[in-house]
């Protein structure tokens, strides 16, 4: 059959990474003590909330433009842990969102935190706000609130794009302690330049495990480390393998794929392999010579199910 990707190894590899995560979750659930290193940005949470409490100013939490997806949920979970501390000290919070579905979920999660802490009366429904889903209108709205309410601490975590610096610099201008984490790597340098503490890369995903020490999250985090180790091993091994192959093995056939015809290897004079001919790459993207499939038959009538 004619399919874009005939390789199954990449799917198996992803399944292997998933297995690492699930296996470690099970290990942690079984009582195995797993280690998490210290993350300075998260250690600063108490300091930032303490400062807000002393100054009587709100703690600002913004998940950037995150939607109702793993990034948005992770950001709101971290904000939930921050809110828990803020709730104990009656420190006002402001959680501003750019996504209506995430706003709905965040409202319930934050309300739940206040109830669990035994202070449901301290929950202000207006402390969790949907601002707008337009990027720069959102930035303007958040910056406006920062200046009006002069927040003492700002937690900027999630999908941040070009609006990151507007918000971070506004918070810096009012003297707020800032802890940031962006899943968009191009924004990380801006946040490093503007914020006091920045969680880099997957430290963002490690935060909830670090804060809660919940076995499921800690196990998942260790599984993630195993997965990264597996990826690094594959890169190193395949780089070495490819280098040796390029130096010592010559290419004697060339892949030819003409439009409408099956691809095939044709003999050529021996030469050095190109990068896309190296075996490690072809492990993941195999080329299978074979007969081309015949054209499909047409239906006699238009299908009634499914959309066009």
């Amino acid at each position, binding site marked *: 059959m*004619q*399919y874009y*990707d*005939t390789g199954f190894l990449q799917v198996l590899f992803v399944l292997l*990474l*998933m297995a690492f*995560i699930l296996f470690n979750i099970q290990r942690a659930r079984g009582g195995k003590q797993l280690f998490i290193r210290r993350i300075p940005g998260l250690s600063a949470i108490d300091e930032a909330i303490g400062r807000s409490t002393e100054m009587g100013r709100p703690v600002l939490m913004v998940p950037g433009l995150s939607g109702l997806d*793993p*990034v948005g*949920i*992770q950001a709101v979970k971290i904000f*939930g*842990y921050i809110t*828990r501390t803020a709730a104990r000290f009656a420190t006002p919070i402001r959680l501003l969102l750019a996504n*209506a579905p995430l*706003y*709905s979920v965040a409202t319930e999660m934050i309300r*739940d*935190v206040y*109830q*669990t802490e035994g202070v449901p009366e301290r929950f202000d*429904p*207006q402390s969790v*706000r*949907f*601002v707008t889903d*337009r990027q*720069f*209108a959102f930035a303007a709205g958040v910056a406006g609130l920062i200046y009006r309410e002069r927040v003492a601490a700002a937690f900027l975590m999630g999908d941040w794009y070009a609006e990151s*610096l*507007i918000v*971070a*610099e506004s918070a*810096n201008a009012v003297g707020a302690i800032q802890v940031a984490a962006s*899943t968009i*790597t191009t924004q*990380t340098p*801006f946040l490093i*330049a*503007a914020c006091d503490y920045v969680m880099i*890369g*997957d430290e*963002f*995903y*490690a935060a909830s495990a670090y804060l*809660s020490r919940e076995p*499921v999250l800690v196990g*998942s985090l260790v599984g*993630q480390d195993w*997965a990264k180790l597996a*990826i690094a091993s594959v890169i190193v091994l395949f780089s070495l393998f490819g280098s040796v192959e390029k130096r010592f093995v010559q290419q004697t056939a060339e892949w030819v794929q003409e439009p409408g015809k099956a691809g095939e290897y044709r003999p050529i004079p021996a030469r050095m392999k190109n990068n896309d001919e190296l075996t490690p790459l072809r492990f993941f993207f195999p080329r299978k010579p074979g007969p081309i499939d015949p054209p*499909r*038959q*047409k*239906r006699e009538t*238009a*299908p009634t199910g*499914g*959309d*066009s």
Partner: protein
Amino acid sequence: MIPVAQAAQPLSFWQAEPGSTRMWLLILAAVVVGFLVVAALLRAPTRARPVIVSTVTFLGGLYFVLHFLWPTAQDYSPDEVPRNAVEGFSFWLQGTLPSVTAFAQSLGAMLLGIGIYSLLSIHLGRLLKRQKDWFFSLVFTLSMAAMILFGYWDWISRLTPEGARAAAETPSVFPHFAKDLLFGGLFINMDAVMFSIIAFFIFSAAYRAFRIRSVESTILLGTALIVMLGLMGGVVVSQDSLLNSIAQPGESVIVDSLRLPTIRSWIQDNLQSPSIRAMEFGLAIGGLAMALRLWLSIEKGVSH
């Protein structure tokens, strides 16, 4: 580009002609069904709710996992007969995707209503109580009302082919003009202003970041300086003319290695790119783990 009504397409049960009575009935039905589902969930026994949510989440996730992993035919067309069961399932997955995503969009639209309610409750409350900065709330409320009014007026008038043609030929007619003035004339320009402000923020942030405070910030300063100088044409030409007096390009490896574009490329290719890729690997794995926990409903709330 002015949106115009599309020509008639082959329709399924879930689709309707733009502007037709059936389209409005389907929208109404979606709203009614949405509220009924919410009401049914609220009346469901407390113990049953997590089970319902977990099951729906798992099935929804399973659909998209299969859609991603299942072999996809290159030249899929809904009027063709699949050659075998693998292709048949692939056709089904591809054919049902618009309907499944439409359900997600309907849910998102309902939740947007909650978002708008949040905005109005904050700003109308501030207006009615004449609290601090009530004037901004007034501006916001009027702007939102005007944008909704003229936006929908314009959209509805373009739904039929005749309306779309009229809007394209005479854009200065009232509802189209008002919407274009509000959106293209005001909103987009204000958006651009906010974007432009970033230049000033970059300047102030860079000033703070590029001060020598520690070993790390000094390394950052030095590296950034080389990369920036390597991108400045005047500096590169001046340095090239200086180094060319010592050795022409290609004559000396040492001199060539001292050229700013070479150093810049080395920094970007060997330090910057691998670092960013390493971060992206970590983020991708983190996202995978989070998605897995959500899909299998093993992610707990904050209060658990």
